[in-house]
């Protein structure tokens, strides 16, 4: 199920809230059970853009199997310290193997067939929704269990920790220690306006970002990235900036909605997004973009590789490899490999630059933004060749102005406005925390919410509605 769908907003969410707080009046365990069931239903719900209206039982079984195996391994790690290391290694390997099979098997096969010059028919694998997220969440759990930080072993709450629907499909990647205490407290089972009100604000603003802005930019980006011709300068920049804004508002919108949904259930999910286009360096960018993934990569990849403890060259290598694998995590394709490597190189260069005098704020921001936009072009391109065409277009190698549709003027106006917005407007969190949520703001947000529903309806009819970009990862 998608947050930006009618069945979620008008049926699932109100019903889940009603049942959850109804059950909480009876017992805490029942409330957790209801939330588990709701989360599993949310996961199993058929994709609205799929041709068939079928329940996705196989993916649900995979999720449940993964949860069960990891829970048992976690328990084994906790209860048998002598075999903890072996169990941890086995668990991490098993999780990575499952992720590798579903996500990378066909990519590996196609590359192998290209190398050996033989055709292999691709495996019929459908990527289970959210597999990257629930796999990483559970790897973190196993490590935390090994380190004694995941002490609580209650199956219902563990299932809830992994499947809690606001973070299940596209993050944020959560730690056992972040959520389990919140599921255990009785306070979380009461209807609490102090959480619900900001939750509504977060959810509404996130929905608006996704439906009105990200989906509005999407056609401009698609028109350029998916075109059959090499784009000229103006066209290439229009497409690149449109995707830059689309991705920003898509992911920012998703993150806001996830936090808002969590708050409705009195669960505070970690921040995942902090005005990344205001970053003054690439490292600063990664401090602000997909914060929980950055943290995971640092804690479970960069530091285990040696971090900065093994000398300068090794540190550069670790940085590069971490970002490279971070790129691969996003998807099985050479564009993601390139994108990860690109950011790895940028971080290495930044480290080499070291403590020399940093550039002034505005040029630093502009340079960082430019570097990020170039990265997004590779990230979005359908192939490495297409990425090359786009980048050639952006430096003017394909001419200055191509066959622009009549809407390009509007596109530039909107993109310029959005660029200003992402640089000066308060983040959702700042807005919610610094403005009092009074009746007038409720009218404003309620109105936004209504217009988002209208947009959802018309986008659905026009078949231009789209899932969140990060759902595919």
């Amino acid at each position, binding site marked *: 199920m998608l947050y930006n769908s009618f069945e979620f907003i008008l049926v699932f969410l109100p019903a889940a809230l009603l049942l959850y707080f109804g059950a909480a009046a009876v017992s805490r365990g029942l409330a957790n059970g209801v939330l588990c069931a709701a989360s599993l239903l949310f996961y199993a719900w058929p994709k609205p853009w799929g041709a068939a209206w079928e329940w996705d039982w196989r993916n649900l079984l995979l999720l449940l199997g993964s949860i069960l195996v990891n829970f048992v391994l976690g328990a084994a790690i906790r209860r048998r310290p002598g075999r903890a290391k072996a169990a941890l290694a086995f668990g991490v390997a098993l999780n990575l193997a499952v992720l590798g099979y579903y996500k990378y098997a066909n990519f590996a096969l196609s590359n192998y067939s290209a190398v050996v010059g033989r055709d292999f028919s691709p495996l019929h694998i459908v990527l289970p929704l959210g597999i990257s997220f629930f796999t990483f969440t559970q790897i973190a759990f196993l490590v935390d269990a090994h380190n004694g930080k995941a002490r609580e072993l209650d199956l219902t709450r563990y299932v809830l920790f992994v499947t809690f629907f606001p973070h299940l499909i596209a993050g944020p990647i959560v730690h056992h220690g972040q959520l389990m205490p919140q599921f255990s407290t009785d306070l979380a089972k009461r209807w609490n306006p102090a959480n619900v009100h900001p939750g509504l604000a977060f959810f509404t603003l996130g929905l608006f970002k996704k439906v009105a802005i990200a989906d509005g930019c999407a056609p401009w980006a698609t028109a350029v990235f998916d075109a059959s011709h090499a784009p000229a300068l103006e066209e290439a920049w229009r497409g690149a900036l449109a995707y830059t804004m689309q991705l920003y508002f898509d992911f920012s919108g998703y993150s806001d909605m996830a936090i808002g949904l969590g708050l409705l259930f009195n669960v505070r999910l970690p921040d995942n997004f902090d005005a990344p286009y205001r970053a003054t360096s690439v490292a600063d960018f990664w401090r602000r973009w997909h914060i929980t993934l950055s943290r995971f990569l640092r804690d479970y990849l960069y530091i285990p590789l040696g971090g900065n403890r093994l000398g300068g060259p090794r540190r550069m290598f670790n940085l590069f490899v971490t970002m490279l694998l971070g790129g691969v995590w996003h998807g099985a394709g050479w564009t993601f490999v390139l994108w990860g490597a690109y950011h790895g190189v940028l971080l290495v260069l930044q480290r080499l630059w070291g403590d020399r005098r940093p550039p002034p704020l505005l040029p630093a921001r502009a340079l960082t933004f430019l570097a990020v936009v170039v990265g997004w072009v590779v990230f979005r391109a359908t192939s490495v060749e297409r990425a090359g065409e786009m980048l050639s277009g952006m430096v003017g190698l394909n001419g200055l102005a191509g066959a622009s549709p009549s809407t390009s003027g509007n596109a530039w106006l909107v993109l310029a406005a959005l660029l200003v917005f992402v640089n000066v407007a308060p983040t959702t969190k700042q807005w919610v925390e610094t403005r009092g949520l009074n009746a007038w703001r409720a009218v404003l947000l309620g109105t936004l919410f*209504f217009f988002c529903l209208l947009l959802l309806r018309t986008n659905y009819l026009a078949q231009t509605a789209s899932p969140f970009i990060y759902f595919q990862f």
Partner: protein
Amino acid sequence: MEVAGESNRRPLFLAHTGRCSIIAAMAAGVGEIAQQVLQSQVAGLPHCHVPPIRSISTRRFGWVWLLTPLAWTLAWPALSLLWLNRYDHGESAFIHALYERKHVVMERKGPPQVADGSGGRLVVVGGSATLTGIDAALMEAKLRRPTVNYGVHAGLRLDYLLYRAKQELRAGDTVLFCPEYELWRYSPEVLDNFDWPYPITYDKRYLLSIGAGRFLRAVYSVPLDDYWRSASGWRRRLRGDHHHTRPIYDTSTLSPNGDLGAELPRGGIGRVGTVSLAEVRGTPSGNLVADFATWAKSKGIRLLFCFPNMASPDGPPGDAERAGFDSLTAFLRDCGFTVVDRPEDAWYPRDWFTDTQYHPDAACRRVRTESLISRLRPHLGVSADGATDDVLVAHDDPALAELESRGWRTVEVTRTTASFADWAKPYDRHLFLVAGVSEGGLPPALGQALPTATPVVAAVGTGPWSYVRTVVTSAKASLRTDLRSLTGRAVPQLSLNLRPAPPGTGRPFEILVNRRDRIPRDSPAGLAVVVIDPELGVVLDAASFPADGGPAVTRRVHRLAAPPTSP
């Protein structure tokens, strides 16, 4: 800062922090992470604590947030109904112009003379295939009963076409129903971009008549762009420009029987796929037609059906297509329709069609109408009076040249010559647009208004329009106006422009109605006249006369013979 602290010697997976950020590890070093952990512990926060959202909200916030969208939801249909319009939409302007004219045509063709339907109006109902493919004037002449072409636009869909037809039909009428094939795929679910703009702009009552559920579905399907666009529609409306929205086809060429005479652009219609019809019985479209038939029978209206004229599909109908046609025919007969032809009877060569596969050129229209007339005669009890189907008679018609190029032989059999005064006599409730120089011989109604021996452009009315008298005299005279301004009444709109002709045309003036010059070519350089029916908003006739108003050829009649059939 390079660190050799304790945290670096611990198992590497342990490096959790309260304020987790990759840069702390990547750019600054693990030591800072250790420091942050310490800070978190000092602050008494649990491991990886997530800081709360610190917001201040009033108690009413939640209720107001919930009630606001509910209030919008309730108010939105009314707001939409009041606000939405497409006054800038050429297709809607065209449909509006057609319906207001066709209403006049239906009224003029009068009440039925005989209640059993034998002498009432013959009303051809359909979409633009009917509008452009049926010559109701010819049918009226040959079938000897008042005939109205009530074809409009298939984009309005079956529901609306029948809804409007019901408002015009009366007991004793005969309906010849001729829908395009696509109309059988009608779905009442939503109004789409095609059939929404006209009713929301010009016929809001219809939207209130379609039932609350359907209306609400329609309202909640309107793209938000349309609300923005409506602002420009209102600007047009407030400035009065909405009457000048250019329709897609020129409705001033409508005949007094409702036939569209405009020359349509030839756009290349491409491939025409086979026509496959699914079973319509029990479908929304089938139910609509069945309900219409029941209604018509209760009103004493006779029902005929013909298949629409269209460009021949790429292949002949197969068994499946044939079964679809047979099924439709059986369904229509069960509903009480008399089906007068088969689909193939109305299929013509592709190059006889213009911008769509349903829009024939003038030549095809004539052939199609003649064929239809011969099929209708037995059902209407009209004898052929010796006419044979392979000898067709056409009046002045741009189709003649095209027919000749396709092997038809045309022979001029009669020509009508008349003086200006005689020619103008029947037009006693009309508006004359006159341009040129007169030296006398004018009809009495014009003689009082127009000066002689001086270049003049003028608009002069007769009968109830005789108060219209706008005369401009000079060699460079011009008159730019519109029909509503000229008459001061809410008649169908036409733009009128009488102005000096460009050099090299051999004529002193041109008379443009809806931006098209209406003076016949090769006309004498005396006085050019265009006759307008103001109530109907159409150009009825045009001719040029010598300056003294003397005789000129005003009409030619040709005999047309079909090409020999291939063995």
